[in-house]
């Protein structure tokens, strides 16, 4: 649990390929979690805390705009 976190921080902010090579405008929470490499409960947490903006569309389903995902990954 300890050790190399500091050295890994902000090592390579290149967004994952799935995010750059696509014309998708938004992603579900599950897809967002996959792109970020985190558990999807962490994505809900990021949304809840206002660190990641999401929109409610289609009967209340949450979608994360691609631009917001790029902003979080500091790739904009």
């Amino acid at each position: 649990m300890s050790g190399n976190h500091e050295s890994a921080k902000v090592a390579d902010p290149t967004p994952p390929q799935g995010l750059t090579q696509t014309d998708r405008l938004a992603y579900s929470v599950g897809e967002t979690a996959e792109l970020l490499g985190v558990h999807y409960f962490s994505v809900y947490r990021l949304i809840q805390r206002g660190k990641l903006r999401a929109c409610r569309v289609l009967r209340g389903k949450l979608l994360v705009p691609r631009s917001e995902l790029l902003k979080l990954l500091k790739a904009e």
Partner: protein
Amino acid sequence: MIKRKGQQRDGVAPPSLKRMSDTEHAAYFEAFAAIKGDYQALCLIGDKLREVETTACGLAPLDSQPQGGHAELPDSAGGRSPWEVCASLMRLNNNEVLLCKRVSEHGLEYAVIDQASVASAYAKANGPLDVLRTGDNPRQVLRDYLRSERETLGLMTNDITANVRLLIAERFPKQDLRRVVNEITRMCKKVAHLGFSETLTEFAPNLQKQRRGVGI
């Protein structure tokens, strides 16, 4: 009937959906199959948060904290002392939520930290540590953390039920299946709520053990 953890009991309708039509029956099982993984995750997270709540009730007195020998997490802001891991609260695939402490200029500081895998895209851009809550009172830090996790569970539940509504509207257009949607919504909300409902009374016999076992 869908039992907790998502196992199906074949051919048995949920109690509130007795005398359901064939369409309702089909919609119920199709919708539940689609969200089964999410429902199981909801159960799992609810259970883990209940464990955290039990831990929060049974924290050892601060003067009996064990010293040394714990893993450390460097502060990403730099220049401040690293976090010492007191306990792992929850592990979900690549993420682990940890209760940590460190010595600050005002005394001991506690934090609940979500640690992501260093290999993840999120960690590469933001660092692997996401400090969720901090404070000088560990019980209060855990209480605040649990309150915010409860809200996050609510958000997750709403998203799952939105997926159910969407799926039913697509697969069974122009049919009134509100009873099915309501039943699945009720089940998800119950599971999400269960993580916190029977806290002190159910776990009271274990508190003594927890008090001795968990030290921060």
